[in-house]
Protein backbone atom coordinates (compact mmCIF):
# COMPACT_ATOMS: atom_id res chain seq x y z
CA UNK A 1 0.00 0.00 0.00
CA UNK A 2 1.14 3.50 -0.79
CA UNK A 3 -0.34 6.95 -0.72
CA UNK A 4 -0.49 8.55 -4.14
CA UNK A 5 -0.37 12.35 -3.93
CA UNK A 6 -1.46 14.08 -7.10
CA UNK A 7 -0.83 17.75 -7.79
CA UNK A 8 -2.68 19.13 -10.80
CA UNK A 9 -3.46 22.72 -11.71
CA UNK A 10 -2.32 23.92 -8.31
CA UNK A 11 -4.49 21.51 -6.31
CA UNK A 12 -2.96 18.67 -4.36
CA UNK A 13 -4.62 15.64 -2.76
CA UNK A 14 -3.90 12.13 -1.51
CA UNK A 15 -5.33 8.85 -2.77
CA UNK A 16 -4.82 5.44 -1.16
CA UNK A 17 -3.24 3.18 -3.72
CA UNK A 18 -3.44 -0.61 -3.79
CA UNK A 19 0.07 -0.65 -5.25
CA UNK A 20 3.45 0.17 -3.75
CA UNK A 21 6.81 1.63 -4.84
CA UNK A 22 7.21 -1.23 -7.33
CA UNK A 23 4.42 0.18 -9.50
CA UNK A 24 5.70 1.44 -12.82
CA UNK A 25 5.56 5.12 -13.77
CA UNK A 26 3.23 4.19 -16.60
CA UNK A 27 0.80 2.46 -14.22
CA UNK A 28 0.89 5.35 -11.78
CA UNK A 29 0.08 7.88 -14.52
CA UNK A 30 -2.72 5.69 -15.86
CA UNK A 31 -4.25 5.17 -12.43
CA UNK A 32 -3.96 8.88 -11.66
CA UNK A 33 -5.91 9.79 -14.79
CA UNK A 34 -8.62 7.28 -13.88
CA UNK A 35 -9.06 8.39 -10.28
CA UNK A 36 -9.07 12.09 -11.13
CA UNK A 37 -11.67 11.47 -13.85
CA UNK A 38 -13.81 9.41 -11.48
CA UNK A 39 -13.71 11.96 -8.67
CA UNK A 40 -11.93 9.52 -6.39
CA UNK A 41 -9.45 12.13 -5.27
CA UNK A 42 -10.99 14.70 -2.97
CA UNK A 43 -10.83 18.18 -4.49
CA UNK A 44 -9.47 16.91 -7.80
CA UNK A 45 -12.34 15.93 -10.06
CA UNK A 46 -11.83 16.51 -13.78
CA UNK A 47 -14.25 14.30 -15.69
CA UNK A 48 -12.77 15.11 -19.10
CA UNK A 49 -9.13 14.84 -18.07
CA UNK A 50 -6.98 14.02 -21.11
CA UNK A 51 -5.33 10.58 -21.06
CA UNK A 52 -1.93 12.24 -21.49
CA UNK A 53 -2.49 14.88 -18.79
CA UNK A 54 0.35 13.55 -16.64
CA UNK A 55 2.78 12.51 -19.34
CA UNK A 56 5.25 15.29 -18.46
CA UNK A 57 4.77 15.04 -14.72
CA UNK A 58 7.47 13.80 -12.35
CA UNK A 59 7.00 10.79 -10.06
CA UNK A 60 8.82 10.83 -6.72
CA UNK A 61 8.84 7.77 -4.47
CA UNK A 62 9.57 8.97 -0.95
CA UNK A 63 9.11 7.73 2.58
CA UNK A 64 6.74 9.84 4.65
CA UNK A 65 7.46 11.13 8.12
CA UNK A 66 6.01 7.90 9.62
CA UNK A 67 7.95 5.71 7.21
CA UNK A 68 4.96 5.12 4.94
CA UNK A 69 5.35 4.82 1.17
CA UNK A 70 4.31 8.02 -0.55
CA UNK A 71 4.26 8.45 -4.30
CA UNK A 72 4.11 12.02 -5.58
CA UNK A 73 2.86 12.80 -9.06
CA UNK A 74 3.69 16.45 -9.62
CA UNK A 75 4.49 19.06 -12.27
CA UNK A 76 8.10 19.69 -13.13
CA UNK A 77 9.81 22.46 -11.18
CA UNK A 78 12.64 23.67 -13.43
CA UNK A 79 12.73 27.25 -12.20
CA UNK A 80 14.01 29.43 -9.43
CA UNK A 81 12.57 32.14 -11.69
CA UNK A 82 15.82 34.06 -12.18
Amino acid sequence: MAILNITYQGQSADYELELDFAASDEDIRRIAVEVVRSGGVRGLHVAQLAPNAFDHFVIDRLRGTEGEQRIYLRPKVPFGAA
Partner: protein
Amino acid sequence: MTARIVVCGVGALGSTAVQLLRNVDAELRLVDFDRVESKNLAAQWFVKQSVGKNKAEAVRLQLSNFYGAKAEAMGVRLAATNAAQLLAGCTLAVDCFDNADSRLALAAAARAAGIPLVHAALAGDGTFGLVRWDERFVPDREDVAGQATCEGGEHLPMIGLVGATLARAIQDFVRAGERRDYMISLSGVART
Protein backbone atom coordinates in the same frame (compact mmCIF):
# COMPACT_ATOMS: atom_id res chain seq x y z
CA MET B 1 29.62 28.91 15.80
CA THR B 2 27.86 31.39 13.55
CA ALA B 3 26.21 29.78 10.55
CA ARG B 4 27.40 30.87 7.13
CA ILE B 5 24.82 30.55 4.38
CA VAL B 6 25.56 30.81 0.69
CA VAL B 7 22.48 31.56 -1.43
CA CYS B 8 23.05 30.63 -5.06
CA GLY B 9 20.76 32.52 -7.41
CA VAL B 10 19.01 35.64 -6.12
CA GLY B 11 16.28 35.98 -8.70
CA ALA B 12 12.65 35.52 -7.70
CA LEU B 13 12.96 32.75 -5.11
CA GLY B 14 16.44 33.65 -3.89
CA SER B 15 15.86 37.37 -3.40
CA THR B 16 12.49 36.74 -1.75
CA ALA B 17 13.94 34.21 0.66
CA VAL B 18 16.97 36.37 1.48
CA GLN B 19 14.93 39.38 2.49
CA LEU B 20 13.07 37.07 4.91
CA LEU B 21 16.42 35.90 6.29
CA ARG B 22 17.53 39.38 7.26
CA ASN B 23 17.30 38.58 10.97
CA VAL B 24 18.57 35.00 10.84
CA ASP B 25 21.53 34.29 13.09
CA ALA B 26 23.94 33.70 10.21
CA GLU B 27 26.29 35.37 7.79
CA LEU B 28 24.93 35.54 4.24
CA ARG B 29 26.84 35.14 1.01
CA LEU B 30 24.94 35.84 -2.22
CA VAL B 31 25.95 34.46 -5.60
CA ASP B 32 24.48 35.61 -8.91
CA PHE B 33 26.09 36.75 -12.16
CA ASP B 34 22.95 38.34 -13.61
CA ARG B 35 21.90 41.98 -13.66
CA VAL B 36 18.60 43.47 -12.55
CA GLU B 37 16.32 44.39 -15.44
CA SER B 38 13.23 46.56 -15.15
CA LYS B 39 11.04 43.54 -15.92
CA ASN B 40 12.45 41.83 -12.79
CA LEU B 41 10.76 44.39 -10.55
CA ALA B 42 7.44 42.62 -11.10
CA ALA B 43 8.47 39.30 -9.56
CA GLN B 44 11.74 39.71 -7.71
CA TRP B 45 12.76 41.57 -4.56
CA PHE B 46 14.39 44.49 -6.30
CA VAL B 47 13.59 48.17 -6.27
CA LYS B 48 13.75 50.61 -9.17
CA GLN B 49 17.12 51.99 -8.01
CA SER B 50 18.64 48.50 -8.40
CA VAL B 51 18.00 48.25 -12.14
CA GLY B 52 21.30 47.74 -13.93
CA LYS B 53 23.14 46.48 -10.87
CA ASN B 54 24.40 42.94 -10.39
CA LYS B 55 21.66 41.01 -8.58
CA ALA B 56 23.85 39.77 -5.72
CA GLU B 57 25.18 43.27 -5.14
CA ALA B 58 21.69 44.77 -5.43
CA VAL B 59 20.31 42.42 -2.75
CA ARG B 60 23.31 43.19 -0.54
CA LEU B 61 22.71 46.93 -0.89
CA GLN B 62 18.98 46.63 -0.24
CA LEU B 63 19.56 44.55 2.91
CA SER B 64 22.03 47.16 4.12
CA ASN B 65 20.02 50.24 3.17
CA PHE B 66 16.61 49.03 4.32
CA TYR B 67 17.49 46.96 7.36
CA GLY B 68 21.13 47.51 8.25
CA ALA B 69 21.72 43.82 7.60
CA LYS B 70 25.05 42.67 6.22
CA ALA B 71 25.76 40.23 3.42
CA GLU B 72 28.58 39.41 1.06
CA ALA B 73 27.94 39.64 -2.69
CA MET B 74 29.69 37.49 -5.30
CA GLY B 75 28.71 38.69 -8.77
CA VAL B 76 29.87 35.64 -10.67
CA ARG B 77 28.35 32.62 -12.40
CA LEU B 78 28.73 29.45 -10.32
CA ALA B 79 30.34 26.64 -12.30
CA ALA B 80 32.28 23.47 -11.59
CA THR B 81 35.50 25.47 -11.79
CA ASN B 82 34.67 27.97 -9.03
CA ALA B 83 31.95 26.27 -6.97
CA ALA B 84 34.30 25.04 -4.24
CA GLN B 85 35.69 28.55 -3.81
CA LEU B 86 32.21 30.12 -3.63
CA LEU B 87 31.10 27.60 -1.01
CA ALA B 88 34.28 27.80 1.05
CA GLY B 89 33.68 28.29 4.76
CA CYS B 90 29.89 27.92 4.49
CA THR B 91 27.79 25.69 6.73
CA LEU B 92 24.71 25.69 4.49
CA ALA B 93 24.16 26.08 0.76
CA VAL B 94 20.87 27.17 -0.79
CA ASP B 95 19.96 26.48 -4.41
CA CYS B 96 17.63 28.97 -6.10
CA PHE B 97 19.00 28.55 -9.60
CA ASP B 98 16.77 28.45 -12.65
CA ASN B 99 18.42 25.63 -14.57
CA ALA B 100 19.38 22.01 -13.98
CA ASP B 101 23.03 22.35 -14.98
CA SER B 102 23.76 25.00 -12.34
CA ARG B 103 21.82 23.01 -9.76
CA LEU B 104 23.93 19.93 -10.53
CA ALA B 105 27.22 21.87 -10.35
CA LEU B 106 26.22 23.30 -6.99
CA ALA B 107 25.08 19.91 -5.67
CA ALA B 108 28.34 18.26 -6.71
CA ALA B 109 30.39 20.93 -4.95
CA ALA B 110 28.26 20.86 -1.80
CA ARG B 111 28.44 17.07 -1.58
CA ALA B 112 32.20 17.09 -2.14
CA ALA B 113 32.65 19.65 0.63
CA GLY B 114 30.13 17.98 2.97
CA ILE B 115 27.96 21.12 3.10
CA PRO B 116 24.21 20.61 3.61
CA LEU B 117 22.22 21.86 0.63
CA VAL B 118 18.57 22.81 0.32
CA HIS B 119 16.87 23.39 -3.03
CA ALA B 120 13.90 25.55 -3.97
CA ALA B 121 12.15 25.22 -7.31
CA LEU B 122 9.02 26.38 -9.05
CA ALA B 123 6.78 25.12 -11.83
CA GLY B 124 6.64 27.33 -14.91
CA ASP B 125 2.91 27.95 -14.55
CA GLY B 126 3.32 29.19 -10.98
CA THR B 127 0.96 26.63 -9.44
CA PHE B 128 3.46 24.50 -7.58
CA GLY B 129 6.83 24.61 -5.85
CA LEU B 130 9.21 22.48 -3.83
CA VAL B 131 11.62 23.03 -0.97
CA ARG B 132 13.66 19.88 -0.69
CA TRP B 133 16.96 18.89 0.87
CA ASP B 134 19.59 17.51 -1.42
CA GLU B 135 19.24 13.92 -0.22
CA ARG B 136 15.83 13.70 -1.92
CA PHE B 137 16.16 16.20 -4.75
CA VAL B 138 16.66 15.56 -8.44
CA PRO B 139 16.58 18.68 -10.65
CA ASP B 140 13.90 18.83 -13.32
CA ARG B 141 14.75 20.05 -16.77
CA GLU B 142 12.53 22.27 -18.86
CA ASP B 143 10.16 20.45 -21.22
CA VAL B 144 11.53 22.62 -24.01
CA ALA B 145 14.52 24.94 -24.00
CA GLY B 146 13.54 28.52 -23.33
CA GLN B 147 10.24 27.56 -21.71
CA ALA B 148 8.45 30.56 -20.22
CA THR B 149 9.30 31.31 -16.59
CA CYS B 150 7.55 33.33 -13.95
CA GLU B 151 9.26 36.63 -14.60
CA GLY B 152 6.14 38.42 -15.80
CA GLY B 153 4.99 38.86 -12.23
CA GLU B 154 1.67 37.03 -12.45
CA HIS B 155 2.96 34.33 -10.12
CA LEU B 156 4.37 36.66 -7.49
CA PRO B 157 2.12 35.37 -4.66
CA MET B 158 3.32 31.79 -5.27
CA ILE B 159 6.93 33.00 -5.49
CA GLY B 160 6.36 34.65 -2.12
CA LEU B 161 4.92 31.45 -0.68
CA VAL B 162 7.80 29.25 -1.88
CA GLY B 163 10.39 31.85 -0.86
CA ALA B 164 8.86 32.14 2.60
CA THR B 165 8.75 28.35 2.98
CA LEU B 166 12.40 28.17 1.99
CA ALA B 167 13.29 30.87 4.52
CA ARG B 168 11.47 28.92 7.22
CA ALA B 169 13.27 25.70 6.30
CA ILE B 170 16.60 27.55 6.53
CA GLN B 171 15.62 29.12 9.85
CA ASP B 172 14.78 25.67 11.27
CA PHE B 173 18.09 24.30 10.08
CA VAL B 174 20.12 27.16 11.54
CA ARG B 175 18.24 27.03 14.83
CA ALA B 176 17.97 23.28 15.38
CA GLY B 177 19.67 21.46 12.52
CA GLU B 178 16.30 20.23 11.21
CA ARG B 179 15.97 19.33 7.55
CA ARG B 180 12.32 19.61 6.51
CA ASP B 181 11.04 19.15 2.97
CA TYR B 182 7.94 20.97 1.77
CA MET B 183 5.59 20.87 -1.18
CA ILE B 184 3.78 24.10 -2.00
CA SER B 185 0.61 24.17 -4.09
CA LEU B 186 -2.44 26.41 -4.29
CA SER B 187 -3.97 24.00 -1.74
CA GLY B 188 -1.36 24.97 0.82
CA VAL B 189 2.05 24.07 2.19
CA ALA B 190 2.59 20.42 3.13
CA ARG B 191 5.58 18.79 4.76
CA THR B 192 6.75 15.84 2.72
